[in-house]
């Protein structure tokens, strides 16, 4: 029987995995979002409202929140089309902060005091969602849809010239990413059974980005490696303890320097595929 502490760690990995995947999905179209904690917060508060105040079962609440967050993601995605690179990053940063500020001000959900009352979900439940979504993405990566996304990321103009509608693809990615982040938030809320706006800050958005960049920014399982790394590594390197953030900062710089695509990349999977075919 797993210790509560260890179970908590694994729960964190699952929740961070989903957050990282939300960044990964949007990044697959060439857009870097520094504000996905905002969508996570929307998911957390919405599911909590639904289960605690409206008495909705948690699975349904998660689905509803994901759809709603996805719609908001689409709405955010449209103006985001106009911005590229650093400007998009700044705008998403602003969005994330606006959402946090919004919930700070939302007295009905506790404001700065936070919200509680959610019932606790099991580790198995969290990982059912996390594994299912990861699997979905791994399958989608082999589809035409993902190839289209990669084309838009690599060269938007050329993508248009082979008939791809970059607008639909980029906005759709925002929506999908927002939905996945919302599920991360809903699971977070029902695992920690208490949420406050500070849980969904810029630092959280950065955690997502860090997991993707370190674990592998060009393949879905990279998010899993990154999430596991960020949560579990400090446990095995106890001596680092209070210096673990600095270690991750240094790791980020080192990774950008030495292996920009992160730990996992497509070439690795190609090698496995070829080995199996041989």
């Amino acid at each position, binding site marked *: 029987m797993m210790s509560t502490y260890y179970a908590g760690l694994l729960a964190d990995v699952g929740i961070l995995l989903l957050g990282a995947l939300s960044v990964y999905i949007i990044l697959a179209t060439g857009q870097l979002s520094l504000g996905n904690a905002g969508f996570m917060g929307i998911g957390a508060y919405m599911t909590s409202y639904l289960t605690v105040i409206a008495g909705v079962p948690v699975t349904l609440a998660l689905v509803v929140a994901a759809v709603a967050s996805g719609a908001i993601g689409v709405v955010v995605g449209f103006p985001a089309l106009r911005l590229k690179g650093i400007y998009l990053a700044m705008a998403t940063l602003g969005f994330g902060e606006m959402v946090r500020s919004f919930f700070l001000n939302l007295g009905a959900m506790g404001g700065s005091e936070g919200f509680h009352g959610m019932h606790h979900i099991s580790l198995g439940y969290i990982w059912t969602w996390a594994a299912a979504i990861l699997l979905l993405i791994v*399958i*989608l990566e*082999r*589809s*035409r*849809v993902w*190839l*289209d996304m*990669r*084309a838009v*990321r*690599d*060269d938007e*103009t*050329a*993508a*248009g*010239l*082979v*008939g*791809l*509608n*970059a607008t639909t693809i980029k906005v759709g990615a925002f929506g999908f990413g927002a939905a996945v982040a919302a599920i991360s938030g809903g699971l977070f809320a029902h695992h920690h059974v208490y949420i406050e706006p500070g849980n969904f800050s810029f630092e959280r958005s950065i955690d997502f980005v860090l997991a993707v960049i370190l674990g592998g920014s*060009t393949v879905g399982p990279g998010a899993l490696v990154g999430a596991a790394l960020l949560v579990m590594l400090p446990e095995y390197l106890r001596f680092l303890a209070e210096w673990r953030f600095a270690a991750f900062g240094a790791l980020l710089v080192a990774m950008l320097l030495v292996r920009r695509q992160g730990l996992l990349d*497509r070439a690795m999977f*190609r090698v496995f595929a070829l080995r199996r075919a041989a």
Partner: protein
Amino acid sequence: MSATGQVPLLALNQVSKEFGGIHALTDISLEVRPHEIVGVIGPNGAGKTTAFNVITGAYRASRGEVLLDGTPITAEPSHRIARAGIARTFQNIRLFADMTVWEHLLVAQPHSEFPLRRLLPMRWGSPQALRRAQEVLEFFDLGAVRDRLARSLPYGIQRKVEMARAVTARPKLLLLDEPVAGMNHDEADTIRKLMQKLRNTGLSILLIEHDMAFVMNLCDRLYVLDFGVMIASGLPAEIRANPAVLDAYLGAAA
């Protein structure tokens, strides 16, 4: 409408394009008929690439219209024009940095009519796409580099990949922007033969090129642009002897 009353494949009617005060194109009219290879030549900066950009929807014409099979496409977005049957390559090759040659041929395919098919792994969902990609791969003799990252290939092969990508969706018209720039005689000859092969499969080609020998050898008709204005058009032999054309080129060099 062309002289025979047939609707041309591509027609530009009095197309002008301005950027602020700069007149990049002024009253350009040209047409491309089915099964033709038409060349657009002229000194650097004459507006040839701008004309391509207007045709493919990257720029919107300030005045005039662009017609494909008689239907106006002047205001259409790029991706819809591509779907309607116009494909192009670029002066500075624009391949997808992170994709293999094979992936280029897959992504250039038209989408299946069932949107849900697009979510399935390509291995299962699109047998026709795989077949077509294989066909194009063999046509362009790219089998050996199928799984290589396109950007890691030599220049001449990259140009072939770009053309292969353009041709995959069976366009009606192919716009080639300096397809043999920087190539030696043998490489250019390979491309020339490919283009003739393509024309024989029913494709029309409109090309921009500086290599005079290449153009004279290959094109059915030529248009000459200078400072955004059409200064001559006709058969290669006529163009070669046209004093205005010589002036334009020599004037630019002087």
